[in-house]
Structure formats: C-alpha cells, structure tokens
C-alpha cells in the first residue's frame, strides 16, 4: 500500500507537539462548553433516576417491572445482553486493530476502550436488578458457607458471572496500561497544582524510559492477543445463557457466533456514534477524519451481512429441524404478537446498513452515524425479541403470555443510557479521549513512509 491512505489520517505538516496539544488542550486549557454542561446535567439527572428506580425496585420487588411468569427475563436481561454487546466491541476493536496494525486504530481505540468499561459495568447491573433478591448475587461465587454449598458449575449463569468479572478486570488493566504514558503527558502539561498532583500520581512516575516502553509494548501486545479469545468467550457465554436451555428458538448451536457478531456490530455502531460526538465536542476534526468513518462504515456493512447470515441460519435450522415447537417459533416470529417489532428489527439491522454499499454515503459522516444509530435500535429490538418471542410461547400452551413493559422498565432503560452518557462525558473532560502516544507513533510512521 502506498503512503496515500495513511496520509489522510493526520493533517499535513503536523508535529509531535501539535498532536499532543490537539488532544490535551481541550482538557487543560479550555473550559467545558455549554452543550457539554447541559448534557452533563441531563445525564446526571438520568443517573439519579436510575439510582431512584433501583432503590424502588429493591424495596418493592420485581413486581413493578413487566416480568411475568412466562416472560421471566423481560427487559432487564435484554438490556443486559445489549449493553454487554456494546461493551464487547471496545476492547476487541482496540486489540484486533493493534494486532493487524491498522493505522486508523490510534484515533479511536481509547474512547472505544472507555466505552467498553462503562458498558460492561452497566450490563453487570441488570442481572442483579432482575434477581428479586439481589443480596443473594454472591451465591454465584464459591465462598465458604455454613451450609457447605457450592455454586452449580454446570450452569451458564455461573459461567456468565465469571466471564463478566474476568472481562471487566481485564479491560480495566488494558485500558490503564495504555493510559499511563498519556497520564504522564497530562502531568507534564498541567498548569494547576491539583492537575499535576492528580495526573502525576495516576501516571505512577512514568518517564518514557526505553526499558519501560520495551516492557510496555511486549505486555500490551500480549494482552491484545489474549483479548480476542476472551471477548469471543464473553459473548459466547452470554449466548449460552440461552442456548444451554431447552427452549424453542434458543437451543441452537448458532447462538454463540450469532451473539458475537451481533455484539461487534452494535459495539462498532456505538463507537461510530461516540466518535462523531467526541470529534465534534473536543474539536478533533483533524485526527478523527471522514476516512475513519468510511472504514468503520465498511465494518458495519460487513457486520450487517454477518447478521443476515445468522438470521438465515436460524430460520433454516428451525425449518429443517422437523420439530413442531421450533416451527411454531419461526411462525411466531413473523406472525406473532411481536411481528411488527421483528420486521422493524430486520429493517434496522439488515436493510438500512445496505446504504453503506455506496461510497458517497460512507464518505458522509451524518449518513454513517445515522446508520449506526438505527442499527443500535435494531440490535436492542433483537435482544428484546430473542427473550420475548421464546418465553412467550414455550412448550406449555397454558404458560403462553405476552410481555408488556411498564413505566419502570422504560425508566430503568433511560436511566442506564443516561448513566452511560454521564460516564462518557466525565471521561471526555478528565482523560485524553485519543491515545496521544499512539498518535505519535502513527505520525512517525507517516513521516518515514512519505
């Protein structure tokens, strides 16, 4: 490949110092603008709303939600799967693009990793919220107890707990390791004493020593190589919550890859949306370029085709299964009570992303972001429908029932979105949203290539 594509990723004639200033100055020299303040206030209120709803839920029990004896998982587990899908993408994107040496990684990996941390943290709340007796969540861990009981290792829920905890811890270490050199940069640029002390302590005395960089590179690449199977395992395990059951529409071997593709699809969509917001909010037009959106547009298109393959496999295996319940399930998808939602989901996930075949639309940031928003709605519908459709008509006709969400369901969903926005807004003002040391490396690569 010629130097052409890489050239477009950084402004011409820029210097190492200018790149650092571009990323660090919005944090250190500029006050937050009015849009940030308004967004922070609104998301802060939504966070309070989430806290209030959670308190009410714990006081009153899950009867306030729409969960019923048929659709026991309702909104909370759908939200869990949606959030963990988004959370899957950040570390995966960062690690996969590092290992494949993609030059466009440097501008997006940092906030994608932050997105992972926040989304996985929020996802982890939902299974606890829907427990009804949340204080028993610790039963998932093997702790010494007077009853001599052990967790049931054959249960997918126990695997799920282990996978989330491992992934969250791993992502935090991966994020922090990449952040240390940038914290040192902020320490050295901070003008206030408080900034110097806080960033200085967080940077742990990093001095950019060649020995330290050598070890840093080794460890970072090793962690990246471990991140890929870990990410795949996390969402595969989330899928096994479903496919290890005996319910029609769930007990399919396609589920783990199907969930992983869906996770990367929705996660990439969320990265596109955040990239547009961060680019605009922090004035990073020079380093998050239309070319980044065009490349991510291609990934979204590939994700959509992957989803089409998964849906097709699902339908085909249900049709070929010669199993009454499976066929009933397939019929219910298209004609049952949730059929309008199902068609909306297919439109969001399969049809709308096809717009990205057009190179002109991929070159337009609003178009790519629009598709990303639509597909995230589609992916949320998918998570909801996976649960509603199967649980609404299982094997026992007397147990058939329809799910209708209550106000509390919606408030908790809105609260979780607000909490996510709150965390992302805080991150954007406190930590460098773009990995400055990776940008420096990219600039060097571009200079030596030119």
């Amino acid at each position: 490949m010629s130097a052409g594509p890489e050239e477009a990723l950084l402004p011409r004639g820029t210097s190492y110092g200018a790149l650092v200033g571009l990323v660090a100055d919005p944090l250190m020299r500029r006050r937050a603008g009015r849009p940030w303040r308004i967004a922070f206030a609104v998301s802060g209120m939504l966070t309070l709303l989430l806290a209030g709803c959670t308190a009410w839920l714990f006081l009153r029990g899950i009867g306030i939600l729409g969960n019923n004896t048929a659709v026991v998982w309702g909104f909370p587990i759908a939200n869990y799967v949606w959030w963990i899908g988004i959370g899957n993408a950040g570390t995966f994107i960062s690690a996969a693009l590092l290992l494949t040496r993609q030059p466009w990684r440097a501008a997006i990996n940092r906030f994608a990793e932050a997105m992972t941390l926040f989304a996985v943290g929020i996802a982890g709340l939902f299974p606890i919220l829907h427990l009804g007796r949340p204080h028993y969540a610790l039963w998932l861990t093997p702790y010494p107890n007077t009853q001599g009981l052990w967790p049931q290792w054959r249960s997918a829920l126990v695997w799920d707990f282990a996978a989330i905890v491992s992934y969250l811890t791993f992502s935090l270490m991966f994020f922090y390791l990449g952040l240390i050199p940038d914290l040192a940069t902020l320490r050295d640029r901070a003008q206030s004493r408080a900034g110097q002390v806080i960033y200085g302590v967080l940077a742990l005395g990093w001095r950019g020593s060649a020995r330290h960089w050598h070890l840093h590179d080794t460890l970072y690449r090793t962690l990246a190589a471990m991140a890929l199977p870990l990410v795949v395992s996390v969402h595969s395990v989330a899928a096994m919550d479903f496919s290890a059951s005996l319910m029609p529409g769930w007990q399919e071997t396609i589920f783990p890859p199907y969930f992983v593709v869906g996770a990367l699809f929705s996660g990439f969509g969320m990265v596109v949306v955040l990239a547009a917001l961060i680019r605009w909010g922090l004035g990073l037009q020079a380093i998050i370029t239309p070319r980044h959106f065009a490349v991510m547009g291609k990934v979204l298109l590939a994700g959509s085709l992957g989803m089409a393959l998964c849906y097709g496999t699902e339908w085909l295996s249900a049709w070929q299964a010669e199993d009454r319940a499976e066929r009933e399930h397939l019929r219910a998808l298209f004609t049952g009570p949730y059929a309008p939602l199902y068609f909306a989901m297919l439109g969001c996930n399969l049809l709308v992303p096809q717009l990205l075949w057009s190179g002109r639309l991929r070159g337009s940031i609003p178009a790519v972001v629009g598709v990303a928003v639509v597909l995230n709605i589609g992916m949320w519908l998918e998570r909801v429908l996976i649960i509603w459709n199967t649980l609404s008509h299982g094997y026992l006709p007397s147990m058939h029932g329809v799910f209708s969400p209550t106000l509390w369901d919606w408030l908790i969903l809105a609260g979780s979105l607000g909490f996510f926005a709150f965390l992302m807004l805080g991150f954007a003002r406190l930590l460098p949203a773009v990995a400055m040391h990776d940008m420096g490396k990219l600039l060097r690569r571009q200079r030596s290539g030119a």
Partner: protein
Amino acid sequence: MSGLLLAEFRDPETLVAAARRARQAGLRGLDAHTPFSVPELAEALALPRPRLRPVMLGAGLAAAALVYALCWYSAVIGYPLNLGGRPLNSWPTFLVLSFESGVLAASVTGFLGFFLGTGLPRLHHPVFAARGFARASQDGFFLAVDEPGLEPARLAALLDGLGPLSVRAVEP
C-alpha cells in the same frame, strides 16, 4: 557530579542513531526517554528481551488447572449432584470457567509483572530534575547516559554530527 547526562534530540531517528553510537563507544548506564514507543531503541541499546510472557503463560495455566480442580472437587467429592444422569465430572462445562480464570490470572500476572519489571510506581527519579524534561512525554527525545566522570563536552563530541538540541548534566 552525579554523572547523569541528558542529550535531547529533535526526532526519534537521530535518537536511535545516537543510542547506537553511544553503545558502540562503550558508554554505560544508557537509557532513552521518548513520548512514544520507539521499537528500534531496544536493539540500539541492547535491551534484554522481557521474560514476561512465559511467566504469564505459567500463571494462566496454573490458575486454569486450579479452577478445574476446584470444580472437579466440588462436583465429584464435595457436593455430588446427579443431574439427569450426567457424569459428575462434566469436564466440558468446567473448561469454560478454567479458560476465563486462566486468562484473568495471566493478565493480572502480566500487569503486576510490568510494575515489578519497571520499578513503577516511582514518583521521584533524578531525571525529572532535568530542565525541559517535561518534553520527554510530549515531543522531546532524550538519550540518558549515567557514566561517572563523563563530561557533557565529551558526550557532545561523541554525538557530533547528529545535532542534539542540548547536552546537559542533570543537577541533583
């Protein structure tokens, strides 16, 4: 005289050339400080290959084996439960937990090993006293030489032709 000298360069390429030259001249206590990773420095300064990965692998395998043993003990001996006639030692399901804990243990080991290997956190280091060292995390590329008795003028003469921005002794 502390002996710590710093030579600043404009770009990573000249720093690498200077590091090579300093090592060939037999100077000791060589290090470099750069705002981003410059992989060629490992070879130029003859840095030893980190031995972190085998340790991580060992820790990961040990944790995976331990968790497998935990599952096996509790399911076969501690609390046997017959579920639909399935074997008590349901190894495929135990492997999920073994894998997750193996990855977790390997990454935690690597993370801790990084701090052991680098000696961080260490908030105070003589090099921070150098004038202009704040640029080492932004756009300055420094060669550090810690050879007792070496005068800045001699180091400057050695680096002749590479155009260091400055060659200074770090005042303690």
